[in-house]
Protein backbone atom coordinates (compact mmCIF):
# COMPACT_ATOMS: atom_id res chain seq x y z
CA UNK A 1 0.00 0.00 0.00
CA UNK A 2 2.90 2.31 0.79
CA UNK A 3 4.17 2.26 -2.76
CA UNK A 4 0.76 2.90 -4.27
CA UNK A 5 0.36 6.41 -2.89
CA UNK A 6 3.11 7.95 -5.06
CA UNK A 7 1.67 6.43 -8.20
CA UNK A 8 -1.76 7.78 -7.26
CA UNK A 9 -0.28 11.28 -6.90
CA UNK A 10 1.56 10.88 -10.21
CA UNK A 11 -1.65 9.77 -11.87
CA UNK A 12 -3.59 12.75 -10.53
CA UNK A 13 -0.85 15.22 -11.47
CA UNK A 14 -0.72 13.83 -15.00
CA UNK A 15 -4.49 14.04 -15.26
CA UNK A 16 -4.35 17.67 -14.13
CA UNK A 17 -1.56 18.36 -16.63
CA UNK A 18 -3.56 16.89 -19.51
CA UNK A 19 -6.54 19.06 -18.58
CA UNK A 20 -4.43 22.20 -18.16
CA UNK A 21 -2.76 21.68 -21.54
CA UNK A 22 -6.12 21.45 -23.29
CA UNK A 23 -7.56 24.36 -21.36
CA UNK A 24 -4.42 26.44 -21.96
CA UNK A 25 -4.47 25.78 -25.70
CA UNK A 26 -8.15 26.69 -25.72
CA UNK A 27 -7.37 30.03 -24.06
CA UNK A 28 -4.62 30.60 -26.61
CA UNK A 29 -7.23 30.64 -29.35
CA UNK A 30 -8.13 34.32 -28.78
CA UNK A 31 -5.73 37.28 -28.55
CA UNK A 32 -7.54 38.56 -25.46
CA UNK A 33 -6.99 35.42 -23.35
CA UNK A 34 -3.92 34.01 -25.08
CA UNK A 35 -1.24 35.18 -22.68
CA UNK A 36 -2.99 33.55 -19.73
CA UNK A 37 -3.30 30.35 -21.78
CA UNK A 38 0.43 29.73 -21.82
CA UNK A 39 0.57 30.21 -18.03
CA UNK A 40 -2.19 27.65 -17.53
CA UNK A 41 -0.28 25.16 -19.67
CA UNK A 42 2.93 26.05 -17.82
CA UNK A 43 1.37 25.19 -14.45
CA UNK A 44 0.39 21.79 -15.87
CA UNK A 45 3.95 21.21 -17.03
CA UNK A 46 5.52 22.08 -13.67
CA UNK A 47 3.03 19.84 -11.83
CA UNK A 48 3.76 16.89 -14.11
CA UNK A 49 7.54 17.34 -13.80
CA UNK A 50 7.49 17.61 -10.01
CA UNK A 51 5.15 14.64 -9.63
CA UNK A 52 7.31 12.47 -11.87
CA UNK A 53 10.05 12.54 -9.20
CA UNK A 54 7.72 10.44 -7.03
CA UNK A 55 8.52 7.64 -9.45
CA UNK A 56 11.65 7.01 -7.33
CA UNK A 57 9.43 5.06 -4.93
CA UNK A 58 8.37 2.77 -7.74
CA UNK A 59 11.56 1.96 -9.61
CA UNK A 60 12.52 -1.62 -10.36
CA UNK A 61 14.90 -3.41 -8.01
CA UNK A 62 17.84 -3.22 -10.46
CA UNK A 63 17.68 0.58 -10.53
CA UNK A 64 17.71 1.07 -6.74
CA UNK A 65 21.49 1.13 -6.28
CA UNK A 66 21.71 3.97 -8.81
CA UNK A 67 18.78 5.93 -7.45
CA UNK A 68 20.65 8.83 -5.83
CA UNK A 69 22.96 9.21 -8.82
CA UNK A 70 19.93 9.16 -11.12
CA UNK A 71 18.13 11.84 -9.11
CA UNK A 72 21.24 13.99 -9.20
CA UNK A 73 21.61 13.52 -12.95
CA UNK A 74 17.95 14.38 -13.45
CA UNK A 75 18.25 17.64 -11.52
CA UNK A 76 21.42 18.57 -13.40
CA UNK A 77 19.86 17.74 -16.79
CA UNK A 78 16.74 19.76 -15.97
CA UNK A 79 18.83 22.71 -14.83
CA UNK A 80 21.19 22.73 -17.81
CA UNK A 81 18.65 21.96 -20.55
CA UNK A 82 15.93 24.13 -19.10
CA UNK A 83 18.28 26.95 -18.13
CA UNK A 84 20.01 27.22 -21.50
CA UNK A 85 16.75 27.07 -23.43
CA UNK A 86 15.11 29.61 -21.12
CA UNK A 87 18.06 31.95 -21.50
CA UNK A 88 18.12 31.65 -25.30
CA UNK A 89 14.33 31.96 -25.52
CA UNK A 90 14.49 35.23 -23.60
CA UNK A 91 17.12 36.72 -25.85
CA UNK A 92 16.16 35.58 -29.35
CA UNK A 93 14.98 38.33 -31.70
CA UNK A 94 11.40 38.09 -32.94
CA UNK A 95 12.64 37.78 -36.51
CA UNK A 96 14.64 34.70 -35.51
CA UNK A 97 11.61 33.04 -33.93
CA UNK A 98 11.04 30.41 -36.65
CA UNK A 99 14.49 28.87 -36.32
CA UNK A 100 14.22 28.95 -32.52
CA UNK A 101 10.92 27.07 -32.62
CA UNK A 102 12.54 24.61 -35.03
CA UNK A 103 15.40 24.11 -32.59
CA UNK A 104 13.17 23.51 -29.53
CA UNK A 105 11.05 21.21 -31.64
CA UNK A 106 14.08 19.19 -32.66
CA UNK A 107 15.02 18.84 -28.98
CA UNK A 108 11.57 17.38 -28.25
CA UNK A 109 11.95 14.93 -31.12
CA UNK A 110 15.39 13.98 -29.84
CA UNK A 111 14.04 13.40 -26.34
CA UNK A 112 11.32 11.11 -27.70
CA UNK A 113 13.96 9.26 -29.71
CA UNK A 114 16.19 8.92 -26.63
CA UNK A 115 13.34 7.46 -24.58
CA UNK A 116 12.76 4.92 -27.33
CA UNK A 117 16.50 4.16 -27.40
CA UNK A 118 16.52 3.43 -23.67
CA UNK A 119 13.55 1.09 -24.09
CA UNK A 120 15.22 -0.69 -27.00
CA UNK A 121 18.73 -1.01 -25.56
CA UNK A 122 17.36 -2.04 -22.18
CA UNK A 123 15.09 -4.56 -23.89
CA UNK A 124 12.25 -3.30 -21.72
CA UNK A 125 9.41 -3.60 -24.19
CA UNK A 126 7.04 -6.47 -23.70
CA UNK A 127 5.04 -7.73 -26.63
CA UNK A 128 5.10 -7.05 -30.34
CA UNK A 129 2.73 -4.05 -30.24
CA UNK A 130 4.88 -2.18 -27.75
CA UNK A 131 8.04 -2.93 -29.69
CA UNK A 132 6.57 -1.76 -32.99
CA UNK A 133 5.16 1.41 -31.38
CA UNK A 134 8.53 2.11 -29.75
CA UNK A 135 10.30 1.76 -33.09
CA UNK A 136 7.72 3.93 -34.86
CA UNK A 137 8.10 6.65 -32.21
CA UNK A 138 11.87 6.34 -32.48
CA UNK A 139 11.75 6.75 -36.25
CA UNK A 140 9.45 9.78 -36.16
CA UNK A 141 11.35 11.39 -33.27
CA UNK A 142 14.73 10.91 -34.94
CA UNK A 143 13.47 12.28 -38.26
CA UNK A 144 12.01 15.27 -36.42
CA UNK A 145 15.32 15.83 -34.61
CA UNK A 146 17.57 15.84 -37.66
CA UNK A 147 15.01 17.49 -39.94
CA UNK A 148 14.39 20.31 -37.46
CA UNK A 149 18.13 20.89 -37.12
CA UNK A 150 18.44 21.22 -40.90
CA UNK A 151 15.44 23.56 -40.91
CA UNK A 152 17.11 25.60 -38.17
CA UNK A 153 20.37 25.76 -40.14
CA UNK A 154 18.53 26.89 -43.27
CA UNK A 155 16.51 29.56 -41.52
CA UNK A 156 19.52 30.78 -39.62
CA UNK A 157 21.53 31.05 -42.84
CA UNK A 158 24.08 28.37 -41.88
CA UNK A 159 22.94 26.47 -44.96
CA UNK A 160 21.81 28.94 -47.57
CA UNK A 161 21.11 26.85 -50.61
CA UNK A 162 18.79 23.89 -51.05
CA UNK A 163 20.90 20.83 -51.79
CA UNK A 164 19.54 18.99 -54.79
CA UNK A 165 20.94 16.22 -56.92
CA UNK A 166 19.51 13.96 -59.62
CA UNK A 167 17.60 10.96 -58.34
CA UNK A 168 17.14 12.55 -54.93
CA UNK A 169 13.61 11.24 -54.49
CA UNK A 170 14.84 7.70 -55.14
CA UNK A 171 17.66 8.05 -52.62
CA UNK A 172 15.26 9.45 -50.02
CA UNK A 173 12.77 6.65 -50.61
CA UNK A 174 15.57 4.11 -50.31
CA UNK A 175 16.70 5.62 -47.00
CA UNK A 176 13.16 5.36 -45.64
CA UNK A 177 12.70 1.79 -46.88
CA UNK A 178 16.06 0.80 -45.41
CA UNK A 179 15.09 2.30 -42.03
CA UNK A 180 11.81 0.42 -42.03
CA UNK A 181 13.58 -2.77 -43.07
CA UNK A 182 16.07 -2.50 -40.20
CA UNK A 183 13.13 -1.82 -37.89
CA UNK A 184 11.49 -5.03 -39.12
CA UNK A 185 14.74 -6.87 -38.58
CA UNK A 186 14.89 -5.65 -34.97
CA UNK A 187 11.38 -6.92 -34.33
CA UNK A 188 12.28 -10.26 -35.87
CA UNK A 189 15.52 -10.46 -33.88
CA UNK A 190 13.83 -9.68 -30.55
CA UNK A 191 11.36 -12.49 -31.14
CA UNK A 192 14.11 -14.81 -32.29
CA UNK A 193 12.72 -15.30 -35.79
CA UNK A 194 15.69 -14.24 -37.85
CA UNK A 195 19.37 -14.68 -37.17
CA UNK A 196 20.82 -11.21 -37.68
CA UNK A 197 24.33 -10.69 -39.01
CA UNK A 198 25.07 -8.11 -36.34
CA UNK A 199 24.19 -8.01 -32.66
CA UNK A 200 20.95 -6.36 -31.64
CA UNK A 201 22.46 -3.15 -30.16
CA UNK A 202 24.35 -2.59 -33.42
CA UNK A 203 21.15 -2.96 -35.42
CA UNK A 204 19.46 -0.46 -33.11
CA UNK A 205 22.28 2.01 -33.77
CA UNK A 206 21.95 1.42 -37.52
CA UNK A 207 18.20 2.03 -37.20
CA UNK A 208 18.70 5.39 -35.50
CA UNK A 209 21.49 6.33 -37.91
CA UNK A 210 19.28 5.66 -40.93
CA UNK A 211 16.31 7.52 -39.42
CA UNK A 212 18.47 10.57 -38.70
CA UNK A 213 19.92 10.36 -42.22
CA UNK A 214 16.42 10.22 -43.69
CA UNK A 215 15.42 13.36 -41.77
CA UNK A 216 18.44 15.19 -43.18
CA UNK A 217 17.89 13.97 -46.75
CA UNK A 218 14.20 14.78 -46.60
CA UNK A 219 14.77 18.39 -45.48
CA UNK A 220 17.85 19.36 -47.51
CA UNK A 221 16.15 19.85 -50.89
CA UNK A 222 13.27 21.95 -49.52
CA UNK A 223 13.63 25.66 -50.26
CA UNK A 224 13.65 28.41 -47.66
CA UNK A 225 10.22 29.70 -48.69
CA UNK A 226 8.68 26.37 -47.73
CA UNK A 227 10.34 26.15 -44.31
CA UNK A 228 7.23 27.34 -42.39
CA UNK A 229 5.31 24.33 -43.65
CA UNK A 230 8.23 22.05 -42.87
CA UNK A 231 8.55 23.30 -39.29
CA UNK A 232 4.85 22.75 -38.83
CA UNK A 233 5.17 19.19 -40.14
CA UNK A 234 8.04 18.44 -37.77
CA UNK A 235 6.08 19.97 -34.90
CA UNK A 236 3.30 17.48 -35.65
CA UNK A 237 5.91 14.71 -35.96
CA UNK A 238 7.39 15.41 -32.55
CA UNK A 239 3.90 15.45 -31.06
CA UNK A 240 3.18 12.09 -32.61
CA UNK A 241 6.50 10.62 -31.43
CA UNK A 242 5.82 11.86 -27.88
CA UNK A 243 2.34 10.36 -27.98
CA UNK A 244 3.67 7.00 -29.14
CA UNK A 245 6.41 6.88 -26.49
CA UNK A 246 3.72 7.87 -23.97
CA UNK A 247 1.91 4.69 -24.90
CA UNK A 248 5.08 2.64 -24.42
CA UNK A 249 5.66 4.23 -21.00
CA UNK A 250 1.97 3.83 -20.18
CA UNK A 251 1.71 7.53 -19.44
CA UNK A 252 -1.63 9.07 -20.48
CA UNK A 253 -0.38 12.68 -20.10
CA UNK A 254 2.27 12.10 -22.76
CA UNK A 255 -0.22 10.27 -24.96
CA UNK A 256 -2.80 13.04 -24.78
CA UNK A 257 -0.41 16.00 -25.05
CA UNK A 258 1.49 14.34 -27.89
CA UNK A 259 -1.57 13.47 -29.89
CA UNK A 260 -3.19 16.90 -29.35
CA UNK A 261 -0.05 18.51 -30.77
CA UNK A 262 0.13 15.95 -33.54
CA UNK A 263 -3.40 16.77 -34.68
CA UNK A 264 -2.95 20.51 -34.16
CA UNK A 265 0.29 20.49 -36.13
CA UNK A 266 -1.35 18.56 -38.96
CA UNK A 267 -4.21 21.07 -39.13
CA UNK A 268 -1.82 24.04 -39.10
CA UNK A 269 0.22 22.42 -41.86
CA UNK A 270 -2.88 21.94 -43.98
CA UNK A 271 -3.97 25.55 -43.41
CA UNK A 272 -0.58 26.82 -44.48
CA UNK A 273 -0.37 24.61 -47.53
CA UNK A 274 -3.83 25.86 -48.48
CA UNK A 275 -2.68 29.48 -48.13
CA UNK A 276 0.02 28.73 -50.70
CA UNK A 277 -2.40 26.72 -52.85
CA UNK A 278 -0.20 23.64 -52.67
CA UNK A 279 -0.56 20.18 -51.24
CA UNK A 280 1.75 18.97 -48.47
CA UNK A 281 3.14 16.33 -50.83
CA UNK A 282 3.90 19.14 -53.28
CA UNK A 283 5.86 21.03 -50.62
CA UNK A 284 7.85 18.04 -49.47
CA UNK A 285 8.44 16.21 -52.71
CA UNK A 286 8.77 18.86 -55.38
CA UNK A 287 11.34 21.58 -55.48
CA UNK A 288 9.51 24.86 -55.88
CA UNK A 289 12.50 26.92 -56.97
CA UNK A 290 13.23 24.39 -59.67
CA UNK A 291 9.70 24.46 -61.08
CA UNK A 292 9.73 24.07 -64.86
CA UNK A 293 10.19 27.45 -66.45
CA UNK A 294 6.82 27.93 -68.04
CA UNK A 295 6.12 30.85 -70.29
CA UNK A 296 4.65 33.61 -68.21
CA UNK A 297 2.10 35.93 -69.74
CA UNK A 298 3.61 39.01 -71.34
CA UNK A 299 3.63 42.06 -69.09
CA UNK A 300 2.74 45.46 -70.47
CA UNK A 301 3.57 48.82 -68.88
CA UNK A 302 6.60 50.36 -67.22
CA UNK A 303 8.06 50.56 -63.76
CA UNK A 304 7.51 54.10 -62.44
CA UNK A 305 9.90 55.10 -59.67
CA UNK A 306 8.89 57.93 -57.30
CA UNK A 307 10.49 59.57 -54.27
CA UNK A 308 9.56 58.24 -50.84
CA UNK A 309 8.69 61.76 -49.66
CA UNK A 310 6.13 62.22 -52.45
CA UNK A 311 4.54 58.87 -51.64
CA UNK A 312 4.37 59.86 -47.95
CA UNK A 313 2.62 63.13 -48.73
CA UNK A 314 0.16 61.41 -51.08
CA UNK A 315 -0.81 59.06 -48.26
CA UNK A 316 -1.19 61.96 -45.85
CA UNK A 317 -3.96 63.35 -48.12
CA UNK A 318 -5.64 59.98 -48.72
CA UNK A 319 -8.80 58.99 -46.85
CA UNK A 320 -7.87 55.36 -46.40
CA UNK A 321 -4.60 53.41 -46.53
CA UNK A 322 -4.05 49.67 -46.31
CA UNK A 323 -0.52 48.56 -45.56
CA UNK A 324 0.72 45.18 -46.76
CA UNK A 325 3.90 44.27 -44.88
CA UNK A 326 6.17 41.45 -46.01
CA UNK A 327 9.30 39.85 -44.71
CA UNK A 328 11.39 42.57 -46.37
CA UNK A 329 10.03 44.96 -43.74
CA UNK A 330 11.41 42.78 -40.96
CA UNK A 331 14.73 42.33 -42.74
CA UNK A 332 15.08 46.12 -42.82
CA UNK A 333 14.06 46.24 -39.12
CA UNK A 334 11.59 48.95 -40.07
CA UNK A 335 8.45 47.86 -38.16
CA UNK A 336 8.88 50.61 -35.53
CA UNK A 337 9.32 53.30 -38.16
CA UNK A 338 6.31 51.96 -40.03
CA UNK A 339 4.11 52.25 -36.95
CA UNK A 340 5.44 55.75 -36.31
CA UNK A 341 4.41 56.71 -39.85
CA UNK A 342 1.00 55.06 -39.33
CA UNK A 343 0.43 57.07 -36.15
CA UNK A 344 1.22 60.28 -38.07
CA UNK A 345 -1.32 59.34 -40.75
CA UNK A 346 -3.92 58.49 -38.10
CA UNK A 347 -3.25 61.84 -36.46
CA UNK A 348 -4.10 63.47 -39.78
CA UNK A 349 -7.41 61.58 -39.95
CA UNK A 350 -6.40 58.84 -42.38
CA UNK A 351 -7.99 55.42 -41.78
CA UNK A 352 -5.10 52.94 -41.70
CA UNK A 353 -5.32 49.14 -41.66
CA UNK A 354 -2.77 46.37 -41.95
CA UNK A 355 -3.40 43.45 -44.30
CA UNK A 356 -1.36 40.34 -43.51
CA UNK A 357 -1.08 37.41 -45.87
CA UNK A 358 -1.15 33.97 -44.19
CA UNK A 359 2.36 33.12 -45.37
CA UNK A 360 3.94 36.55 -44.80
CA UNK A 361 7.16 36.05 -42.86
CA UNK A 362 9.07 32.84 -42.34
CA UNK A 363 6.34 31.05 -40.44
CA UNK A 364 2.55 31.51 -40.47
CA UNK A 365 1.49 34.47 -38.40
CA UNK A 366 5.06 35.71 -37.90
CA UNK A 367 4.23 39.07 -39.46
CA UNK A 368 1.45 39.50 -36.89
CA UNK A 369 3.97 38.91 -34.12
CA UNK A 370 6.47 41.33 -35.65
CA UNK A 371 3.82 44.04 -35.93
CA UNK A 372 2.67 43.36 -32.38
CA UNK A 373 6.28 43.72 -31.23
CA UNK A 374 6.40 47.18 -32.80
CA UNK A 375 3.30 48.10 -30.79
CA UNK A 376 0.63 47.79 -33.50
CA UNK A 377 -2.67 46.91 -31.77
CA UNK A 378 -4.03 43.61 -33.03
CA UNK A 379 -7.41 45.11 -33.91
CA UNK A 380 -5.67 47.09 -36.69
CA UNK A 381 -4.34 43.89 -38.26
CA UNK A 382 -6.58 42.09 -40.74
CA UNK A 383 -6.20 38.74 -42.42
CA UNK A 384 -6.63 38.05 -46.12
CA UNK A 385 -10.27 36.97 -46.12
CA UNK A 386 -11.31 39.79 -43.80
CA UNK A 387 -9.88 42.64 -45.85
CA UNK A 388 -9.51 41.51 -49.44
CA UNK A 389 -12.76 43.12 -50.63
CA UNK A 390 -11.76 46.46 -49.11
CA UNK A 391 -8.90 47.16 -51.51
CA UNK A 392 -11.34 48.19 -54.24
CA UNK A 393 -12.65 51.04 -52.07
CA UNK A 394 -9.27 52.08 -50.66
CA UNK A 395 -7.33 55.14 -51.78
CA UNK A 396 -3.81 53.87 -51.28
CA UNK A 397 -2.29 50.44 -50.76
CA UNK A 398 1.27 50.54 -49.43
CA UNK A 399 3.26 47.36 -50.06
CA UNK A 400 6.47 47.09 -48.05
CA UNK A 401 8.83 44.20 -48.61
CA UNK A 402 6.15 41.87 -49.96
CA UNK A 403 6.09 40.56 -53.49
CA UNK A 404 4.65 37.18 -54.43
CA UNK A 405 1.66 37.51 -52.08
CA UNK A 406 0.45 40.57 -54.02
CA UNK A 407 1.18 39.28 -57.54
CA UNK A 408 -2.05 39.40 -59.58
CA UNK A 409 -0.62 36.70 -61.86
CA UNK A 410 -1.86 34.27 -59.21
CA UNK A 411 -5.39 35.24 -60.25
CA UNK A 412 -4.98 35.75 -63.98
CA UNK A 413 -1.96 33.97 -65.45
CA UNK A 414 -2.47 30.20 -65.80
CA UNK A 415 1.17 29.78 -66.79
CA UNK A 416 2.49 31.30 -63.57
CA UNK A 417 3.92 28.91 -60.96
CA UNK A 418 1.89 30.66 -58.27
CA UNK A 419 -1.39 30.52 -60.23
CA UNK A 420 -4.27 29.77 -57.85
CA UNK A 421 -2.51 30.94 -54.70
CA UNK A 422 -4.80 33.27 -52.72
CA UNK A 423 -3.29 36.77 -52.88
CA UNK A 424 -4.07 40.18 -51.46
CA UNK A 425 -5.87 42.13 -54.21
CA UNK A 426 -3.62 45.16 -53.86
CA UNK A 427 -3.86 45.95 -57.58
CA UNK A 428 -7.55 46.85 -57.09
CA UNK A 429 -6.75 49.82 -54.87
CA UNK A 430 -6.97 53.26 -56.47
CA UNK A 431 -3.27 53.79 -56.05
CA UNK A 432 -0.42 51.50 -55.03
CA UNK A 433 3.01 52.33 -53.65
CA UNK A 434 5.57 49.55 -53.47
CA UNK A 435 8.61 49.98 -51.26
CA UNK A 436 11.27 47.65 -52.55
CA UNK A 437 15.04 47.35 -52.33
CA UNK A 438 15.56 47.02 -56.08
CA UNK A 439 14.09 45.66 -59.26
CA UNK A 440 14.77 42.04 -58.28
CA UNK A 441 12.19 39.32 -58.28
CA UNK A 442 10.51 37.86 -55.21
CA UNK A 443 11.30 34.69 -53.29
CA UNK A 444 9.64 32.55 -55.93
CA UNK A 445 11.55 34.29 -58.73
CA UNK A 446 8.48 35.48 -60.60
CA UNK A 447 7.95 38.82 -62.34
CA UNK A 448 5.22 40.81 -60.61
CA UNK A 449 2.62 42.32 -62.96
CA UNK A 450 1.40 44.59 -60.13
CA UNK A 451 4.53 46.74 -60.38
CA UNK A 452 3.82 47.49 -64.05
CA UNK A 453 0.21 48.56 -63.48
CA UNK A 454 -0.95 52.10 -64.31
CA UNK A 455 -1.93 52.70 -60.69
CA UNK A 456 1.40 51.59 -59.21
CA UNK A 457 4.50 53.60 -58.31
CA UNK A 458 7.76 52.13 -57.06
CA UNK A 459 9.71 53.52 -54.13
CA UNK A 460 13.19 52.02 -54.42
CA UNK A 461 15.43 51.76 -51.40
CA UNK A 462 15.75 50.30 -47.93
CA UNK A 463 12.36 50.15 -46.18
CA UNK A 464 13.65 51.95 -43.10
CA UNK A 465 15.24 54.78 -45.09
CA UNK A 466 12.10 55.15 -47.19
CA UNK A 467 9.86 55.29 -44.12
CA UNK A 468 12.06 57.87 -42.43
CA UNK A 469 11.79 60.01 -45.59
CA UNK A 470 8.00 59.61 -45.55
CA UNK A 471 7.80 60.56 -41.87
CA UNK A 472 9.95 63.65 -42.41
CA UNK A 473 7.91 64.72 -45.43
CA UNK A 474 4.61 64.47 -43.55
CA UNK A 475 6.07 66.19 -40.45
CA UNK A 476 7.48 68.97 -42.68
CA UNK A 477 4.01 69.46 -44.11
CA UNK A 478 2.45 69.90 -40.67
CA UNK A 479 5.26 72.25 -39.61
CA UNK A 480 4.80 74.37 -42.74
CA UNK A 481 1.05 74.61 -42.12
CA UNK A 482 1.54 75.70 -38.51
Amino acid at each position, binding site marked *: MLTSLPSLVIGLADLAAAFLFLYGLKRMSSPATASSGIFVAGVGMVAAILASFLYVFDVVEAARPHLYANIGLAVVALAIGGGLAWWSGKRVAMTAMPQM*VALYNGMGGGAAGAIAAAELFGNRTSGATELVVTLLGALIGAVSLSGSLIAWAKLDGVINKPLRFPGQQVVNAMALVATLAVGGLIVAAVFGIAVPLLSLPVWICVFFGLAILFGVLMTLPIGGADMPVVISIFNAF*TGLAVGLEGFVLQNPALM*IAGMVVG*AAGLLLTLLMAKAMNRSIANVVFTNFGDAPKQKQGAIVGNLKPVQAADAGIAMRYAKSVIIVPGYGLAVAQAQQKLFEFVKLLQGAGVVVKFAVHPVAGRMPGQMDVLLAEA*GVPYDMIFQ*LDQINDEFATTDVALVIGANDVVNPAARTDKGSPIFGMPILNVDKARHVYVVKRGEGKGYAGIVNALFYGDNCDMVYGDAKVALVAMIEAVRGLTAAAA
Partner: protein
Amino acid sequence: MDFQISMTGFVALYVFLLAGFAGWVIIGHVPAILHTPLMSGSNFVHGIVVVGGLYTLLGARTPTEQAIGFVAVLLGAGNAAGGFAVTRRMLAMFQTAEAKPARAKPRHHKKG
Protein backbone atom coordinates in the same frame (compact mmCIF):
# COMPACT_ATOMS: atom_id res chain seq x y z
CA MET B 1 2.15 0.45 -9.54
CA ASP B 2 -1.21 -0.40 -8.11
CA PHE B 3 -2.92 2.69 -9.41
CA GLN B 4 -1.24 2.65 -12.81
CA ILE B 5 -3.92 2.12 -15.40
CA SER B 6 -2.84 -0.39 -17.94
CA MET B 7 -3.64 0.94 -21.37
CA THR B 8 -3.28 -1.45 -24.20
CA GLY B 9 -4.69 -1.95 -27.64
CA PHE B 10 -8.02 -0.35 -28.19
CA VAL B 11 -8.15 1.77 -25.03
CA ALA B 12 -4.94 3.48 -26.17
CA LEU B 13 -6.39 3.96 -29.63
CA TYR B 14 -9.48 5.59 -28.13
CA VAL B 15 -7.29 7.97 -26.10
CA PHE B 16 -5.33 8.84 -29.25
CA LEU B 17 -8.52 9.32 -31.24
CA LEU B 18 -10.16 11.63 -28.72
CA ALA B 19 -6.99 13.61 -28.00
CA GLY B 20 -6.34 14.06 -31.70
CA PHE B 21 -9.89 15.23 -32.25
CA ALA B 22 -9.65 17.65 -29.33
CA GLY B 23 -6.45 19.13 -30.76
CA TRP B 24 -8.01 19.48 -34.19
CA VAL B 25 -11.12 21.25 -32.86
CA ILE B 26 -9.26 23.59 -30.49
CA ILE B 27 -6.72 24.68 -33.09
CA GLY B 28 -9.36 24.99 -35.80
CA HIS B 29 -10.80 28.00 -33.94
CA VAL B 30 -7.55 29.91 -33.64
CA PRO B 31 -7.39 33.04 -35.83
CA ALA B 32 -4.49 33.25 -38.27
CA ILE B 33 -3.06 36.19 -36.31
CA LEU B 34 -2.11 33.77 -33.51
CA HIS B 35 -0.61 31.02 -35.65
CA THR B 36 2.99 31.66 -34.70
CA PRO B 37 2.43 31.77 -30.91
CA LEU B 38 0.16 28.77 -31.31
CA MET B 39 2.80 26.77 -33.10
CA SER B 40 5.33 27.58 -30.42
CA GLY B 41 2.66 26.97 -27.75
CA SER B 42 1.95 23.50 -29.06
CA ASN B 43 5.69 23.07 -29.36
CA PHE B 44 5.83 23.81 -25.62
CA VAL B 45 3.07 21.28 -24.89
CA HIS B 46 4.99 18.39 -26.42
CA GLY B 47 7.79 19.38 -24.06
CA ILE B 48 5.90 17.06 -21.67
CA VAL B 49 8.28 14.50 -23.18
CA VAL B 50 10.63 15.59 -20.38
CA VAL B 51 8.43 13.59 -18.00
CA GLY B 52 9.02 10.50 -20.10
CA GLY B 53 12.73 11.28 -20.01
CA LEU B 54 12.60 11.52 -16.20
CA TYR B 55 11.01 8.05 -15.97
CA THR B 56 13.74 6.69 -18.18
CA LEU B 57 16.53 8.35 -16.21
CA LEU B 58 15.16 7.62 -12.72
CA GLY B 59 14.64 3.98 -13.64
CA ALA B 60 18.05 3.62 -15.31
CA ARG B 61 19.94 0.44 -14.39
CA THR B 62 23.14 0.76 -16.41
CA PRO B 63 25.51 3.59 -17.34
CA THR B 64 24.21 3.40 -20.92
CA GLU B 65 20.63 3.90 -19.75
CA GLN B 66 21.77 6.70 -17.48
CA ALA B 67 23.49 8.43 -20.38
CA ILE B 68 20.49 8.07 -22.69
CA GLY B 69 18.10 9.15 -19.95
CA PHE B 70 20.27 12.17 -19.20
CA VAL B 71 20.13 13.21 -22.86
CA ALA B 72 16.35 12.68 -22.92
CA VAL B 73 15.79 14.89 -19.86
CA LEU B 74 18.24 17.51 -21.13
CA LEU B 75 16.54 17.80 -24.52
CA GLY B 76 13.02 17.53 -23.11
CA ALA B 77 13.69 20.25 -20.53
CA GLY B 78 15.07 22.45 -23.32
CA ASN B 79 11.95 21.87 -25.38
CA ALA B 80 9.64 22.77 -22.48
CA ALA B 81 11.54 25.76 -21.09
CA GLY B 82 12.38 27.26 -24.48
CA GLY B 83 8.87 26.76 -25.80
CA PHE B 84 7.40 28.45 -22.75
CA ALA B 85 9.81 31.40 -22.82
CA VAL B 86 9.26 32.30 -26.47
CA THR B 87 5.50 31.74 -26.41
CA ARG B 88 5.08 33.94 -23.36
CA ARG B 89 7.17 36.69 -24.92
CA MET B 90 5.13 36.67 -28.09
CA LEU B 91 1.74 36.55 -26.43
CA ALA B 92 2.61 39.39 -24.07
CA MET B 93 2.91 41.66 -27.11
CA PHE B 94 -0.63 41.20 -28.37
CA GLN B 95 -2.78 44.05 -27.19
CA THR B 96 -5.64 46.28 -28.33
CA ALA B 97 -5.40 50.02 -28.91
CA GLU B 98 -7.37 50.79 -25.70
CA ALA B 99 -5.60 48.41 -23.35
CA LYS B 100 -2.18 49.59 -24.41
CA PRO B 101 -0.99 52.47 -22.26
CA ALA B 102 -2.37 51.13 -18.98
CA ARG B 103 -1.07 47.59 -18.81
CA ALA B 104 1.44 46.87 -21.46
CA LYS B 105 3.38 44.37 -19.36
CA PRO B 106 2.24 40.89 -18.33
CA ARG B 107 1.22 40.71 -14.69
CA HIS B 108 3.63 38.12 -13.36
CA HIS B 109 7.20 37.37 -14.14
CA LYS B 110 7.61 33.71 -13.54
CA LYS B 111 11.02 32.48 -12.64
CA GLY B 112 12.76 29.76 -14.61
